[in-house]
């Protein structure tokens, strides 16, 4: 999808909004699979977001400064006998972008609403 300058594509917006919801549940940091599940739930989809699409979008958001990421302590992963997770978190800029997107979507919805006119 071709992007307008300064605008986020729908998947990036969905990621920021899902991150906000995860934060509201007390999960400040999330890994890719967790986010894929949240996106699937939000969109009521049958399939998790494709690997390439999801991780490319996460990379773009990180390069825009809307997300930060870090690899978790390898000792935590070793303790649970699993590969280490890359943990992402929403930056204040990401939070602002998500809020702005939510307001824009609300306004767009209001503009589209049919109005009564005098007969």
């Amino acid at each position, binding site marked *: 999808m071709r992007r307008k300058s300064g605008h986020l594509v729908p998947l990036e917006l969905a990621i920021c909004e899902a991150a906000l919801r995860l934060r509201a549940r007390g999960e400040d940091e999330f*890994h890719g699979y967790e986010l894929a599940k949240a996106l699937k739930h939000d969109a009521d989809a049958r*399939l*998790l977001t*494709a690997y*390439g*699409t999801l*991780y490319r979008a996460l990379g773009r958001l990180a390069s825009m400064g809307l997300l930060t990421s870090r690899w978790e302590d390898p000792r935590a992963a070793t303790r649970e006998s699993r*590969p*280490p*997770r890359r943990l992402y978190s929403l930056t204040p800029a990401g939070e602002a972008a998500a809020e702005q997107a939510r307001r824009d979507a609300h306004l767009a919805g209001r503009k589209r609403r049919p109005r009564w006119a005098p007969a």
Partner: protein
Amino acid sequence: MNRAMFRIVVFALRGWTWAYTLPLDDVDRETRRREIESDVWEFEAEHGCRATGFRAAVHILLRAFLGVADDLGWAFEHMTPRAPAVRLWTVIRFAVVAIGAATVVVSASGPPLDPARALSVTVEGAGWMQDSKHADSSGAALAPAIAFTLTNIADRATTALEVNAVFHRGALGSAFAPVVGWRGLGPQRSSPAVVLRGHPLYVIDGETARRTAVRLDSVGEARVRLFVHHEGRWASLGDFTIPSRPMPR
């Protein structure tokens, strides 16, 4: 088979990730490979045994396939100018082979096997067995029995199988328990012979109101319906006759 298919699809995904990250610098390459590895692990861990089924394999394959364009786009964005062109061609060739192989594996595996069609029953013997455990003054009780083998006539292996039988004579029925099972049957392979036996049969004497064992000359025919349990559901394998004769040894 489903587990093997799942492993092949995950192997194909790893191979594809390995291929498209090949021309990238060490940091980008390792980051993406570890991230995919973690994602697959979390998927498997969350779904437990179901994660290795047919649907899970298709799910992973679709997630990989639908993301190919983004994988390549991302790889081009991160490719260093010094990356030799030959590596790019390696990536593209590998992509075609990996996607093709995984698609062939999934499509060849097809939908779940229908055990009623895949399994052929060969009756080795059927009749009435004397049950000395339930003997009374009128003699040993008779119980209907059937011996049979199952042959997998499909072109792929089944998963674990359990068989059970319901014997009935007239309106009376009796279920056999416990079930007998195997880990699965390969294509064109037969199970060992199985003998399933119903409950002993009695009649109530009209005059004395006592329960007495049925004699072989008056037992008549009975029927048995065989069932097989495969991948979470029971299916009927058909009805068979239990003739009024002793069970052959």
